[in-house]
């Protein structure tokens, strides 16, 4: 994915949650006095604490294994870390700037325009968060590659080819901006939609021009989100793996994440990989520290209820143009993946036993990861919401965000070293490790999805729940679970889709007998079986869309039917 393996943020971006309701803000929290407005749930806090400690311990073990390996004697490594760091930072910085610009323009256009199918278009951009990066990369190759649609049309019409703009830095940036720009647009659109109707009425009565409206109303609404959002996009691009792997086009555009993979799988240079991993962790940790100081990026569900206030015609024309370009830019690669898949024919792939085995592995790993993520996220967020003590809330919240500092390939490398140190065969440990690693990678998104509604519910109804003397089970079954039904579905969909599109973890642990669909697709590309890759990409895309659209609806129904 742009930032990794489909983890393009979510409806709620994974920046550590604010812990800071103060006196007067809600029933549950305040400084310097005993919290009696929260229902006492010691069992929840105890379970949550144990899990938080276990996760922190696991991450510490990963880091320790990496640090320990760093001290091992090694032959001279040819890895040029300053060059890799410079290249990674340049592409991540450019991705961040371009994605924010695209995101702002698209959010502005979507906020203003009303048309049939608008919800579908907004939903399309929301789906960017789970679209596997390698599917988008493949789509770009279909359109902009040497034998892509554009070149075929250019040769047919004008007799010359445009070369291969899908490869190299331009391709990487394009793929990242498609995914991260759509992600930014969804977050910023929520900010614009949340502008109070009264402010818009005042602006409209003052007859503000489109420019004045943007400067005086829109910009202040979006401004506070930009540093946090920018940091997340930088981080996602900095740790991007499959897009750089597929579109990098050689060592010149390699990033740290891809270099780690190459060092382990191709060069067998573990010491070099460890040095790269430590560099990666250090940079990510600094960016996270900067991000956590900024306003949390929290998206808001629902549509704008603001009154209609159309901009002048030139601004409207610009909005339509932005929307058209963005929709075509985002939808075209995905459409090409589907068309190429159909044209290539699913029959050849479906006839391979390896495909069915890979599909089953993907579904089993994805389902197990999603369920494990749900259990971990529920336990952590229920415990966190039950506690009024700020240090406890931070303790319970922080470990789940560790992934942001320990990206997929680094986490995978850590597990790889642990398994090696334990003397367990990699193939034997692979399924368990891949499930745990994918769960940890999805956990920050899951906690960011379930945490805010739970916190809000306890803040608003803590006194009521306590005065009614509801038991912990009654509180969960009657109040929390029905409210969380859709969020649980969304969270499961995110975790499942992330795992379904993952290449970063499986890349180090995959074998001939243990491969998922993305790994099978990657190997098909490596073996120049592009028809097989096209069919697998289309199947991955269809699976992702079905899961992302279907699971939240299914769980909302189940949650309401179960009462």
């Amino acid at each position, binding site marked *: 994915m742009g930032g990794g393996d489909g983890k393009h943020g979510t409806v709620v971006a994974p920046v550590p949650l604010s812990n800071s309701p103060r006196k007067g803000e809600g029933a549950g929290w305040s400084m310097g006095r005993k919290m009696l407005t929260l229902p006492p749930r010691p069992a929840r806090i105890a379970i949550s604490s144990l899990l938080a400690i276990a996760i922190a311990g696991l991450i510490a073990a990963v880091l320790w294994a990496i640090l320990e390996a760093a001290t091992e004697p090694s032959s001279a490594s040819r890895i040029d870390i300053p060059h890799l760091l410079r290249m990674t930072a340049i592409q991540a910085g450019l991705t961040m700037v371009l994605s924010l610009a695209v995101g702002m323009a698209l959010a502005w256009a979507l906020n203003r325009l009303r048309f049939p199918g608008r919800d579908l278009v907004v939903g399309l951009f929301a789906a960017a968060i789970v679209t596997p990066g390698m599917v988008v990369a493949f789509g770009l190759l279909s359109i902009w590659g040497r034998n892509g649609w554009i070149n075929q049309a250019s040769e047919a019409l004008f007799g010359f080819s445009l070369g291969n703009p899908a490869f190299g830095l331009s391709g990487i940036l394009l793929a990242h901006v498609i995914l991260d720009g759509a992600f930014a647009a969804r977050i910023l659109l929520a900010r614009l939609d949340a502008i109070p109707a009264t402010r818009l009425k005042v602006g409209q009565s003052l007859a503000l021009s489109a420019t004045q409206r943007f400067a005086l109303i829109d910009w202040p609404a979006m401004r506070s989100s930009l540093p946090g959002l920018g940091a997340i996009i930088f981080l996602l691009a900095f740790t991007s793996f499959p897009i750089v792997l597929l579109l990098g086009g050689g060592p010149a555009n390699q990033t740290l994440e891809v270099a780690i993979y190459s060092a382990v799988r191709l060069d067998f240079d573990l010491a070099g990989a460890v040095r790269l991993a430590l560099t990666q962790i250090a940079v990510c940790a600094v960016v996270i520290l900067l991000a956590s100081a900024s306003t949390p990026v929290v998206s808001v569900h629902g549509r704008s209820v603001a009154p209609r206030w159309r901009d002048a015609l030139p601004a409207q024309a610009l909005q339509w143009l932005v929307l058209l370009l963005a929709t075509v830019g985002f939808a075209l690669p995905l459409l090409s993946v589907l068309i190429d898949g159909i044209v290539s024919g699913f029959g050849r792939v479906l006839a391979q036993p390896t495909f069915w085995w890979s599909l089953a592995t993907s579904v089993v790993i994805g389902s197990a990861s999603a369920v494990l993520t749900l259990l971990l996220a529920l336990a952590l967020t229920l415990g966190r919401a039950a506690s009024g003590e700020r240090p406890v809330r931070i303790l319970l919240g922080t470990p789940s965000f560790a992934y942001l500092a320990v990206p997929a390939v680094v986490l995978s490398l850590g597990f790889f070293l642990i398994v090696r140190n334990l003397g367990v065969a990699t193939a034997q440990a692979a399924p368990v490790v891949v499930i745990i690693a994918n769960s940890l990678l999805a956990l920050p998104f899951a906690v960011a999805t379930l945490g805010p509604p739970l916190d809000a519910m306890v803040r608003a109804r803590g006194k009521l729940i306590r*005065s*009614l003397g509801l038991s912990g089970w009654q509180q969960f079954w*009657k109040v929390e679970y029905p409210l969380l039904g859709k969020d649980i579905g969304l969270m499961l969909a995110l975790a499942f889709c992330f795992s379904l599109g993952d290449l970063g973890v499986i890349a180090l642990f995959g074998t001939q007998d243990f491969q998922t669909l993305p790994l099978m697709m990657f190997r098909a590309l490596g073996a120049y079986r592009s028809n097989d890759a096209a069919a697998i990409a289309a199947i991955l895309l269809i699976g992702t869309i079905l899961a992302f659209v279907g699971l939240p609806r299914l769980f909302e129904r189940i949650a309401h039917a179960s009462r």
Partner: protein
Amino acid sequence: MLRAEHLAFAYGKEAQTYDFSFEAEAGAVTAISGASGSGKSTLLDLIAGFLAPKSGTLALDGANLLPLPPETRPLSLLLQSDNLFDHLSAHENVALGLPKGVAKIEGRRRVEEVLQRVGLDGLAHQTAATLSGGQKQRVALARTLLRDRAILLLDEPFSALDDETRQVIRALVGELTRSEGWHTILVSHHEDDIAALATRRYRLAEGRLTPA
């Protein structure tokens, strides 16, 4: 009789300290009025157990309430809003007030009975989100009836209602207080609510209650 004597409290190191003393009889409404920020909600939180006083006593018919946590204090709450869980039906919201271990059929009968008493028997299966403000307060009152606790704390319960509904709900509260023998404490800054319901009233200013 519900009696508080020098119930003292302060938020952290804030200069403002509270020292509450009052009496409230059974079957009557005791009103507390005061300016915004004068500490009316703090007083209710102390009575309900959401805040722990630094010193003082709070007793119901001589029984000390202070050691009891909020969930076991003999009281019910009726706030301005957020009294119900919006995703549950009126019936389900009321049923949350049933004591543990009540058989299903008996529980249903009791819920239907109290809903009937507040005039909502036709809306039992409607979700709370679809009810009007007045209907929501009736549901909360039905649950209060079902729980049958000796104290009812009212925190601006009529503020979100239109005039007509306000008078109806106000009358219902007065009637139930008398018939059930509740010690009802009404916090409000609406003079007409207080005049219509209260048999005893206090004014809250500078952290102290004075009979008005």
